[in-house]
């Protein structure tokens, strides 16, 4: 089983720049394997390159999915982080 949730990017710059770096850093802090997808593209959340290539701009809906011992905490933490960017 894995935990997943959908979230709309509210940050002005999208999942780019500072938000993208902070997102990857936070994802690296969990033991679970985290993926984030936008449309038909999916990225390993520990890869800044893959996250950037999602091209998830402001208003994009992304799906965060985690699989592992702290999967619920990971998804909740990452959602909270994304919501903190304006």
């Amino acid at each position, binding site marked *: 089983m894995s935990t997943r949730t959908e979230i709309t990017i509210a940050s002005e710059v999208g999942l780019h720049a500072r938000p993208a770096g902070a997102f990857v850093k936070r994802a690296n802090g969990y033991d679970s394997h985290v993926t984030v997808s936008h449309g038909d593209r999916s990225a390993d959340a520990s890869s800044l390159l893959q996250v950037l*290539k999602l091209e998830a701009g402001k208003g994009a809906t992304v799906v965060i999915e985690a699989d592992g011992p702290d999967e619920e905490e990971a998804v909740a933490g990452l959602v909270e982080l994304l919501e903190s960017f304006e």
Partner: protein
Amino acid sequence: MSTDTGTTHGALEGVGASGGVVVGPPVHVRRDDRPTAGATRDLDAAVAHVVAHYADLERRDREAGRDEEADVLGAYQLLAADPELVGAVRSAAADAPLDTAVRTAGEALAAELAELGDAYLAQRAEDLLAVVTDLVASVRGRELAVVTDLPEGAVVIAAELSPADTSQLDLDRVAGFAIEGGGMTSHTAIIARSHAIPAVVGCAGIVAATRDATNVLLDGDAGAVHVDPDRDTVAAGHQRAEARRLRREHAARMKGRPVSLAGRRILVGANVGTGQQLAAAVAAAADGIGLYRTEFLHLGASHPPTREEQAHAYRAAVEAFDDPVVVRLLDIGGDKEAPWLDSPDEDNPFLGVRGVRLLLRHPELLERQLDALLDASGVGDLRVMVPMVAAVADLLAVRTVLDERAAAAGKAPPPLGVMVETPAAALLAPHLARHAAFFSIGTNDLTQYTAAADRGEAALRRYHDPVAPPVLQLVQHTVDAGRAAGIPVGVCGAAASDPVAAAVLLGMGVDELSVPPGEVDPVRALVDELDAEQVTALARDVLELPDADAVRAEAHERLGGVLW
């Protein structure tokens, strides 16, 4: 437009990214000849080495309060250890030496990012290449530090400078930057501007040209670097720097002071397109807003802004000034698209359904915006401007809707004017003036439409000068029509803050120059210094000249030191 005759002779030209003139010894920062420290490293060791190097630089920047630079170095650590990069390197290393594998895999990933066609991602591709260069050096057993000792007053010369390179520099000792790569938005340009260090970027050949040089003169305003300049060149450089300093001081003294020409008040307004720019315009004590772009409220949002959202924004602008606030109706189409509007694919968007043409096809957008403007009217001096007018009927159609909505709201309609940005509008000015409360000349579009030269196309740059005589003739025609009808005529394009163009426009009789907030003070100082009779004669005479270069040369000849 280097009509500053003689000063760029024998110099290498680039783009002035941060202003000022400085003379100093060139110091080369090269990533490709760093000393070898010992044995080669395997991939894991190299990644760890590079990440530790960036972490060290990040900490230094953080301690020095350079948070933006520190954030960039944080991202560099993620890039150096990126699982996609590491995986691609491992695959490539199966049949290539490790340093080659790092370079080919890294370059392929960077190319992939750059190809997505997004300017932001293209810059990240540059970052990735900088990281890859450091990884290659580490694999080869080299040190990562690029700079050891900087002499006081050094002019730093490099092919490219990454944020990691720049972080190693003691900026107190750096007098200037001359870089082959980069652009106005590159890291180096941003850091140079924030530390007020003169910089020239995009300066091809500077590394080779300064290899054996002892001195360079770097002119960040003109975007030129003189290698081993003679005494006269240095003296001229210092003279220009001094003139600019005096002008800046004059500009600072002019803040908020009304200016006039031959007793006629000239408004120096601000162009704004975001809340931030509005705040900057207020801080600059501009004479109102000559161009309030409403696209920012409409683009980027997932839905069109409501009447209330718009009214709130317009009211904030109107309440901030006693002088007129000219709000341009939504100008989308062309190169600006709204995600929520189903825009047709057009072969020539700049010649297509944009500005008033689009508004008249989407009456709900026009009505909502006019309702919001009416809600915001009554407190200050709000005026409404119609973009992309090319026929009298364009203006009359908007006039009709505005009158209807005003009657419905029980309010007087605000003054309605025309943005003169098509040759058709300029030529129709006498007719338009009978129905318009003001004209504002948009020189950027007027220039591109007059020469039929896309202003986004760098290869057509020689057609983009707003002081080209055909453009000036259209401007003069518009100004004459406005004056005959007794309505004010302003200019809100880039020409308004271009000193030569501004002098000519004032000589033609325009009443307002609307400029970026940061240019308000310098333009006030310019108006303050100009002599009315001189610019009137200049404006009359340049109409007889064959091209923009001749106009600029003539203006410099006559007005000399007043211009910059």
